[in-house]
């Protein structure tokens, strides 16, 4: 399987401090990876660098084998979709209009959505299961519903890689599980590569076959949940009693 997203000795420094320190990471097409670590470990920075928002001080990022800095923003957007973390909409916007934004990288720059775009939007709505919310003002949805709509937006973008930054914050348990199950479905049925930053270790362990643990700008572990979340690691990296973290046993 070819690497679809690679970080090659990426370093990001911010005033003497190395936020990312020679991070090397390779994600193959079709993988489902969770990025975990304590606050300040550098997870969001890693995402920013991986999605081309931030230029590293050293190292290179390659997307589908092509260095990201050589790509236009639109080219990046066609290869990699990021589920928006927060959405402060200044104006009343319908759910379908929010999802339609996912087609921006594809639609005609002047004339807007083509029939193919409209089809993709409808398909994404169906896929994510927010059809019952059509016509509603996205600003008035519950947090869980909003999150789903934003995932639908990223799905409509139809990029081979889907990135999420802490998508389950503020969600209740039911919606957390629902979102995770959706991600698994997208990954297993459509082959979408999923990279998600998660703070909830239980969710990560349960739904993601590969965990990458980040601490103080370095990858300290990369593997399955059992391999990564050892009691020692939990104690050292997360500084809590390992007993607090109860991990489900996941097969495969």
């Amino acid at each position, binding site marked *: 399987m070819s690497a679809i997203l690679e970080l090659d000795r990426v370093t990001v420094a911010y005033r003497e401090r190395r936020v990312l320190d020679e991070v090397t990471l390779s994600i193959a097409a079709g993988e489902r990876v969770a990025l975990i670590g304590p606050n300040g470990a550098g997870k969001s920075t890693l995402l920013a660098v991986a*999605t081309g*928002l931030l230029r590293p001080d050293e190292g290179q990022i390659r997307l589908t084998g092509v260095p990201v800095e050589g790509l*236009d*923003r*639109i*080219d*990046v*957007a*066609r290869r*990699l*979709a*990021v589920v*928006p*973390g*927060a*959405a*402060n*909409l*200044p*104006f*009343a*916007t*319908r759910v379908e*209009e*929010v999802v339609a*934004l*996912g087609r*921006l*990288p594809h*639609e005609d*720059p*002047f004339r*807007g959505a083509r029939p193919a775009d409209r089809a993709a939007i409808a398909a994404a709505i169906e*896929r*994510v*299961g927010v059809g*019952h*919310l059509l*016509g*509603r*003002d996205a*600003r*008035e*949805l*519950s*947090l*869980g*519903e909003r999150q*789903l709509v934003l995932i639908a937006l990223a799905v409509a*973008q139809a990029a081979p890689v889907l990135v999420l930054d802490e998508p389950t*914050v*503020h969600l209740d348990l*039911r*919606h957390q599980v*629902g*979102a995770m*199950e*959706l991600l*698994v*479905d997208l990954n297993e049925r459509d082959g979408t590569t999923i990279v998600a930053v998660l703070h909830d270790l239980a969710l990560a362990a349960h739904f993601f076959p590969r965990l990458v643990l980040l601490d103080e700008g370095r990858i300290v572990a990369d593997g399955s949940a059992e391999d990564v979340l050892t009691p020692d690691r939990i104690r050292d990296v997360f500084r809590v009693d390992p007993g607090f973290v109860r991990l489900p046993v996941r097969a495969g």
Partner: protein
Amino acid sequence: MTTRGGTLSTTRPRVGRLEGVRDRPLLLVAVGVVALLVALVLGVGVGSVAVDPADTIAILAHRILGLEIPRTWSEATETIVVELRLPRILTAMLVGCALGVAGATFQGLLRNPLADPYVLGTASGAALGAAIAVLIPVRFVILEFGLIQGLAFIGALASITMVYKLSRQSGLAPLTSLLLTGYAVGSLLAAGLAMAMYLSGAALRQIFTYLLGSFDGATWPRFLATLPIILIASVAIILRARSLNGLLLGEQAAAHLGIDVRRERRILLALASLVTAAAVAISGLIGFVGLVVPHVVRLLVGPSARLVLPLSAIGGAALLAYADIIARVAGGIPVGVVTAIIGAPFFLLILRRARTGYEV
């Protein structure tokens, strides 16, 4: 295995009660164009001198369409219709178009429903420029543009450039920085304006008239000189509707959707400022048009800039044309007062519907 959770809330859709209109934006365009044509005829037919409607139409047909019509009207009447009223109504439409587009652009760019074309200091800059022009004992006329128009234009552009440059130096997020700097610079310039007015003596009245906005000074040369600037810049903005749409969810989301945020922000800011400066130079400060028209349009067709921008142009043109007609019929009150009377209730309505958006 997709989640099919039940809806947690069951309220009716609140967005856009006029369902039919939303799907037929072209209908709105047609309505707008008709409104403009009616405004044109009314604007030319109405004024402080009573002109026979038949004469009005005959004059227009003769001068615009070149038809040979036996003259039943006096030369004075023809002058009034063609040299005074026609450029006036056309200028009102042009300025309204500019303000509508600029307002929609600033609201989308700054992601703030309360933004208007003057939010980044353009108003104060233009006013100060005009006040200085009134105080300087220099006569300067090019294409019938006097020192007032010239310095108002320069003042508007200078102030927004200042705001942009200063905002980049602050550590705040770009949008917040722009808004706050705009407020600060605007206040500073307003203080300068107050000082200029204090020193102005006999010229105070003229500064006031400029501040209230009016189309008394609309002439053919001014209209024809401003027309290309506003039209070209407006079209350029409309062609960038995609960038404005991308910004709906925020600058980060826009970047992830393929928008070069920094470049687009700069270009849109420059174009919208240019359009505003041109409008303000020709007509003074007319408020509420840029604020209210885009909201009304969004209520009808949703927030997509591809629709909001051109419809705000048409809507702004129509609103200001009718406002000027009303202002003239009401005995020559300043047109800025009319737009305020129309716009303020609308604005309150919008405030009631405005939300702060997601909390995250």
